[in-house]
């Protein structure tokens, strides 16, 4: 760790595995963090905004952060975001659902370049669906870097595909230093899936920017009760249940309106329901929403409805509550942990139970016994903040940077011991090959002759929020640097 910091002056001492014990426990240490995930802007979603917001808060705390993702269309190379957050869009082939193809090896040259040039000390991969994230963990361990992994989703155990993915997760996480999950349910799930020691798994929830989601009761129409649903229209979000709830409740309550934001294959279900019951004026389908438009839709509603069938954390209900809406949700996954009981009505994932929950909240509305949007917002705004997430993640980095990265022989033994005789042996072989490839790359271009990238963020960051000429100067320098 400390040696790596000195790498600016003495780059030849960079390849160390593990950190010297004397510098292991200094809490104010600044880290060079590399976030790796296949999912980043311009793609939209929970993982993407998590990585972005967390990086911004870590920069604010004085750490150096770079993000690595794959190229999106014509967006490739190096980009800078707010506050000098550098993003590498690497030209790797996308295979399925924005996830890259993996061969375990082909991404090593590019990722090594990034890790060496940016003097990375901690590699933080996100999302178990991201092949690139797992690749980066694999290479980082080969290069002797500390690793952290954040799991954002829940997985079952029943079918063949989950058996396979869980095996791969076991391989990927068995020698990862620390794992972060977004809820306790997610932690239990990950510990079981990857057969981990629960002590190396931390629970750090997601957060919501409370200034983005403020209530505005003037946007509500008083002659009606509006139920807002904002979700991708897919099976896992329980849109079939929604298709049962809409006619049931609309027949009973003539002043009830539905406002549905989001797009997906299950849109047809809602359109059929709307057609059959002639609810065109009461059920509005808004299609896909940009993130900035979400608040504008939320504040028009009285009740926020979430019908998900599985959910690790569910940011949407926090956003809804932050806008002052009454939240009705299914009791699945990590959702019961997210909001206190007086802010959420939990129902079983059935049409009947959800209707009952919604009717109870509607009755409260009619009697005027619901708390005001402002008071709900005031309660929610301090529950989940990105600063808090960054603070807790920083502690994970502090802990991790004091741990040693397993040297190759012990890594092989760990793989064999934890992942079973077949998969363990195969991946131990992969680890050896990866190591040999790394040696070859180091022989071709030694670390000490590789240019060190300009720091935009971090202790020696050159980024100053000031005149644009300086900003673009830094950017030019860094882009030149990374293309050389």
């Amino acid at each position, binding site marked *: 760790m400390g040696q790596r910091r000195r790498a600016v002056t003495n780059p030849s001492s960079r390849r160390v595995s593990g950190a010297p014990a004397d510098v292991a426990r200094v809490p104010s240490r600044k880290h060079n963090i590399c976030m790796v995930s296949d999912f980043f802007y311009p793609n939209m979603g929970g993982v993407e905004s998590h990585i972005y917001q967390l990086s911004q808060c870590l920069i604010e705390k004085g750490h150096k952060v770079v993000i690595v993702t794959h190229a999106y269309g014509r967006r490739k190379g190096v980009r800078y975001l707010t506050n000098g957050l550098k993003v590498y869009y690497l030209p790797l082939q996308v295979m399925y659902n924005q996830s890259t193809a993996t061969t375990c090896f082909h991404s090593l040259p590019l990722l090594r370049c990034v890790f060496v040039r940016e003097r990375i000390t901690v590699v933080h991969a996100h999302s178990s669906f991201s092949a690139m994230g797992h690749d980066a963990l694999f290479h980082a361990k080969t290069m002797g870097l500390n690793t952290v992994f954040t799991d954002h989703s*829940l*997985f*079952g*155990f*029943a079918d063949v595909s989950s058996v396979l993915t869980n095996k791969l997760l076991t391989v990927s996480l068995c020698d990862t230093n*620390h794992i972060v999950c977004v*809820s*306790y*349910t*997610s932690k*239990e*799930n990950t*510990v*079981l899936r990857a057969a981990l020691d*629960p*002590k*190396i*798994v*931390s*629970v*750090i*929830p997601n957060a919501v920017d409370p200034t983005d989601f403020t209530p505005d009761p003037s946007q509500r129409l008083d002659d009606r009760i509006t139920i807002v649903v904002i979700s991708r229209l897919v099976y*896992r979000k*329980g849109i*079939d*249940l929604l*298709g*049962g709830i809409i*006619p*049931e409740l609309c027949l009973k309550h003539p002043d009830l309106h539905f406002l549905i934001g989001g797009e997906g294959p299950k849109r047809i*279900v809602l359109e*059929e*329901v709307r057609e*059959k019951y002639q609810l065109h004026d009461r059920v509005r389908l808004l299609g896909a929403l940009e993130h900035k438009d979400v608040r504008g839709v939320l504040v028009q509603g009285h009740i926020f409805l979430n019908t998900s*069938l*599985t959910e690790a*954390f569910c940011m949407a209900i926090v956003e809804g509550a932050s806008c002052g809406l009454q939240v009705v949700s*299914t009791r*699945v*996954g*990590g959702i*019961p*942990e*997210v*909001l*206190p009981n007086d802010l959420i009505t939990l129902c079983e*994932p*059935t*049409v*009947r139970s959800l209707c009952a929950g919604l009717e109870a909240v509607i009755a409260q509305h009619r009697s005027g016994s619901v708390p005001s949007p402002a008071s709900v917002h005031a309660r929610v705004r*301090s529950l*989940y903040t990105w600063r*808090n997430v960054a*603070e*807790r993640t*920083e*502690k*994970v980095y*502090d*802990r991790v940077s004091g741990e040693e990265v397993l040297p190759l022989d012990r890594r092989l033994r760990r793989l064999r011991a934890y992942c079973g005789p077949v998969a363990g042996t195969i991946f131990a072989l992969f680890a050896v090959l990866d190591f040999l490839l790394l040696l070859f790359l180091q022989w071709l271009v030694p670390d000490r002759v590789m240019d060190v990238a300009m720091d935009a963020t971090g202790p020696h960051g050159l980024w100053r929020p000031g005149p644009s000429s300086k900003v673009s100067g830094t950017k030019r320098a860094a882009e030149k640097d990374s293309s050389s």
Partner: protein
Amino acid sequence: MSVVRVMGPDSAPGPAVPWRKVLWERQPFPDNYVDQRFLEELRRNEGIRQYRYWAVVKEAGFVGQQLSCVAIFITLWLYMEQGLLSPERLLLTSLVCALLGYGLHQALTSQMESGCELRTRLADLQSATIFLSFTFGFSPVLKTLTESVSTDTVYAMSAVMLLAHLVSFPYAHPSTPGSLSLNAALFASVCLASRLPGALHTFAMLSCALLVFAMWPCLLQRLRENAPSQFTGLCVGVCIGGVGGLGSQSPGGAVLLALALGSVTLLCPLLLVMLQRHKDNIQGPWDEAEIHEDISHFLH
């Protein structure tokens, strides 16, 4: 809001307040804290079915008898091809069997309450007439259908199709033969029948195929529901018939069939029962909820 800011891994354990599985409250525990209640909602092998050996053997008997049915059909075809069985005799036997079976089927159906039974005997007679007349009319065409295809190809295709029939057969609910399995079996029968010497042979073979692959499973299902003890006996009988029949033509094939039957009906259930105690199915709050209700009535 005054919160106890003891977070992050490896902080000292906090005061003696009980840990709660909530995220909205900042609790005086480190982030990697593992409580006693960790995984308390884990459920293992919920709703597991304990199998008993002989019960499984009985159920597997259905698979065995279907295998034997295919063997019997092939045996009949071998006899026809070598001219040891005349098409008239096969037709006559088929007719008698069909009538007997139909009577038995009717008797077993009337034992049940005829709530779901809507087909009249006239409708049955109509279908039979239509099928038989069309098959009879088209049998010269079917006879020459595969003339331009080499015999090896036809045999290979039939073998693959019969295998597909066995694999895709709906053993749980055979009273409505799966479209794939029935079509595969009929395709195989057409292939085989087209290699017989005459058009009447083809017709007899196809009628026989319909009897074996379409009607017989229906009757057997009725027997399974209403007369379980006779059903077992019948399965054993069919298996012996299959092995015996094949043995008269090809002793090697009969040995193989007997081995297959033995492994399907005796060995596989044994494996299932023995591997049962290794079953470790875990469920918990992370599982995707299932929609059990029928929501389609909102749409149609």
